[in-house]
């Protein structure tokens, strides 16, 4: 009788983590960038060095210029995102719960959703003026649609068994909405918030490039006009940080709001 060891196939089934590589990749890219710009192969007008961008950013922070732009942009985003999210959840919930509203609302949303929201900015400026209102409005619109559609989908995908269980224990319409449909939709609502955060950043920059005298979008466009590539890069880095921060914040919020998914 021949003896043979059990085959070792475990290697294919585990995915190893590489903590060093995670940091090394990003750090390597920055170092490469710095070195390339130092050799003078790439003129700073095209691509300033990372250290120059950092220095410029610190200088702008000291002068208070940076804070002004960031605060202005944050105000626009906060207002637009907040209004859009609230309206989106309310409409999505209503359309998801009531058959009549679904019949009315679905075709309207389907017809208006594909319009690129930035194309509406000129119209919004015509209606609301060149001031804050039109910028906030375009962000509100951009956030409203993903929120409404996601909330609606979440409500419609609420487990029928849970609805039956709730009804069997005497739950009324309002109880069903509050205690079954809304919590069922919550994961989709958060997915919508994350989508909306990306959209609102995009629309913010676009709106600020078209018609603004402050804000990060203005900073980027203005720096380009003046050939100040370093300041332009500061704006881009800021936007990337803003995107990272909003995603991180929403993920944290999600873990608090959906504790039953936390360690699933």
């Amino acid at each position, binding site marked *: 009788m021949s003896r043979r060891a059990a085959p070792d196939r475990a290697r294919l089934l585990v995915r190893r983590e590489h903590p060093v590589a995670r940091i090394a990749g990003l750090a390597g890219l920055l170092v490469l960038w710095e070195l390339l710009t130092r050799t003078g192969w790439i003129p700073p007008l095209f691509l300033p060095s990372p250290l120059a961008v950092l220095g410029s950013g610190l200088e702008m922070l000291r002068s208070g210029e940076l804070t002004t732009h960031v605060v202005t942009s944050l105000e626009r985003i906060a207002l637009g995102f907040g209004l859009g999210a609230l309206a989106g959840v309310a409409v999505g919930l209503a359309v998801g719960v009531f058959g009549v509203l679904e019949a009315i609302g679905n075709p309207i949303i389907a017809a208006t959703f594909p319009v690129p929201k930035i194309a509406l900015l000129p119209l919004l400026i015509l209606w609301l003026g060149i001031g804050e209102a039109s910028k906030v409005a375009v962000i509100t619109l951009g956030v409203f649609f993903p929120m409404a559609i996601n909330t609606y989908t979440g409500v419609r995908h609420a487990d029928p*068994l*849970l609805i039956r269980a709730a009804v*069997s*224990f005497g*739950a009324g319409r309002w109880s069903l909405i509050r*205690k079954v449909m809304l919590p069922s939709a919550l994961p989709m609502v958060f997915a919508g918030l994350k989508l909306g955060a990306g959209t609102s950043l995009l629309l913010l920059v676009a709106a600020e490039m078209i018609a603004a005298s402050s804000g990060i979008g203005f900073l980027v466009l203005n720096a380009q006009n003046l050939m100040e590539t370093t300041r332009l890069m500061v704006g881009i880095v800021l936007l990337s940080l803003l995107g990272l921060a909003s995603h991180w914040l929403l993920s944290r919020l999600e873990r608090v709001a959906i504790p*039953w998914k936390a360690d699933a």
Partner: protein
Amino acid sequence: MRIRVDNVSKSYGDARARRVEALTGVTFTVEAEELVAVVGPSGCGKSTLLNLLAGLLRPDAGTIDFEGPLRAGRPATAMVFQEFALFPWRTAQSNVEFGLEESGVPARERRAIARRFIELTGLGGFETRYPHQLSGGMRQRVGIARALAVDPAVLLMDEPFSALDAQTRQLMQEELLAIWARTRQTILYVTHNIHEAVFMADRVVVLSRRPGRVLEIVPVELPRPRVEGMLGEAVFLGAVERIWSLIKSQAREALREGAA
């Protein structure tokens, strides 16, 4: 509380909009504090019957009556579901309180009542767990506690243990009987498992396959408390044999047609 199901029929439209007769002329009674099991082959309308009793469906013909005094604020029925149907966003404690919330019981009282049934069902120490953190057996304890907490006159159980493994199922059956010995609800217990039906019930209603009608009502002459040792007794085996002989050919037909 006594349940009288009198000549009840129910049909519904299936996915291809054909009428499917689920139940036809079903008549039986469940006496107060009796535990009656309903068995039948796949697609005999067992779940339809429970939904009718819970008021989640309305019969096309016939009547369903609950006879007997009902204390104010006490619902006639509460249901225990096969797939547990716990709210994933609620802790065990909060799930048990759900029915009480809907009956308008004040928060403090709710907590006290829930605590009592959590202890009774052996959930002590698991109050703050979410359903996904509990085993199947523990989840169904929550389901049972949630139903018992509203103090229903009739407990409706829809294959409550069929999603559990065989060992857990046996233990849960005995535990349910022990709990029932204290709470004494009228219980209508639907299952496809003949052994389970005979082990649990005072009488077993045997349904035919679709359209479901009552083939026979088989009494189980085993004393209580029921214990595992009875599974080998002649009375037990005789009842199992009788029920199986009633539904064997029908189950075979159902298998051939792939009916669900």
